């Protein structure tokens, strides 16, 4: 009998759906609440064959993944994969290294270097925190004055983390981008995330809506190449934009949300994930 668990920070709708699918399939998921964990660095006892990591917190998820992997448990997604996907700079670096089309991205550490970097990218430019999600602290900077303002705010009221400047060329997308769901080596479905009127941010957590996006051979190939660049063999939400020269990948999510994507795609995403988790436990 497979010993499986789901690791969580809070019980989100996704986590409930995953638990319900596991029950339907006659599998059993223990629930590991991060808030109750005490990780003993000297303990290497294997309690689980497989853990599906659904931490809301990037750092907690990372430490827990390392702990359980050292105990011999297969963690989905792996520690290495989480480390790459949870940090936008590391993701961009991995994508560029694998020659996956990705927006031009520069990292700078000081205001002077930021201004020089933006001079090479041109306006508008997008500034993002390296760690974070749900479009939090994302800024589209249209001119020099706005850049000065954002940099000064970060320097004066930010912590060390806000002084890591991740800068990306602005891609003039057609009011939408794509979230594709990859489970193992299959691109199971995709959605267009359509921005609210007047908004440039497409995240569904920020009011964007979800519509079915056909999984074309180009999309499939790019998604599989992307997830391979960050470790593969897991569950991913790949974010892509449509440009005049084809698709470009800008982010890969390792604990992808899917609550708004089941209905438009008609794909039972949690069922696919649960099946994959159990398949991996037996390998």
């Amino acid at each position, binding site marked *: 009998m497979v010993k499986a668990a789901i690791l969580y920070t*809070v*019980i989100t709708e996704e986590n*409930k759906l995953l638990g319900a699918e596991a029950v339907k399939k006659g599998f059993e998921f223990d629930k590991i609440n991060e*808030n109750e964990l005490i990780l003993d660095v000297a303990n290497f006892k294997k309690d689980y064959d497989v853990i599906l990591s659904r931490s*809301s917190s990037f750092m907690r998820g990372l430490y827990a993944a390392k702990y359980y992997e050292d105990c011999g448990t297969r963690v989905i997604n792996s520690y290495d994969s989480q480390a790459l996907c949870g940090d936008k700079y590391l993701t961009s670096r991995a994508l560029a290294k694998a020659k996956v089309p990705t927006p031009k991205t520069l990292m700078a550490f000081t205001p002077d270097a930021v201004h020089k970097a933006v001079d090479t990218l041109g306006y508008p430019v997008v500034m993002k925190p390296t*760690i*974070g*999600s*749900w479009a939090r602290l994302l800024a589209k900077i249209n001119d020099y004055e706005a850049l000065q303002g954002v940099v000064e705010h970060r320097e004066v009221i930010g912590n060390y983390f806000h002084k890591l400047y991740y800068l990306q060329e602005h891609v003039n997308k057609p009011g939408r981008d794509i979230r594709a769901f990859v489970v193992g080596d299959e691109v199971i479905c995709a959605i267009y995330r359509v921005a609210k009127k007047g908004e440039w941010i497409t995240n569904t957590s920020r009011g964007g809506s979800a519509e079915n996006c056909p999984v074309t051979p180009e999309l499939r190939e790019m998604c599989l190449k992307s997830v391979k660049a960050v470790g593969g063999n897991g569950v991913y939400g790949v974010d892509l934009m449509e440009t005049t020269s084809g698709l470009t990948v800008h982010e890969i999510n390792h604990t*992808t949300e899917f609550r708004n994507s089941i209905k438009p795609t008609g794909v039972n995403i949690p069922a696919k994930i649960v099946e994959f988790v159990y398949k991996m436990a037996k390998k």
Partner: protein
Amino acid sequence: MANAECPECAGEIKFKPNTEVGEIISCADCGTKLEVKSVNPPKVDKAPKVEEDWGE
């Protein structure tokens, strides 16, 4: 079964049948986000603050 009480406004919190421990719900009266601490007996507390590294 008695209902839970919102720690912010003392409003009555009714659980749906499939409510789970660890789930985040909202108080219908004041909108405060609450974490389910126990289903039976029903108990809630203020939900944890969303940290900067939270996301997907």
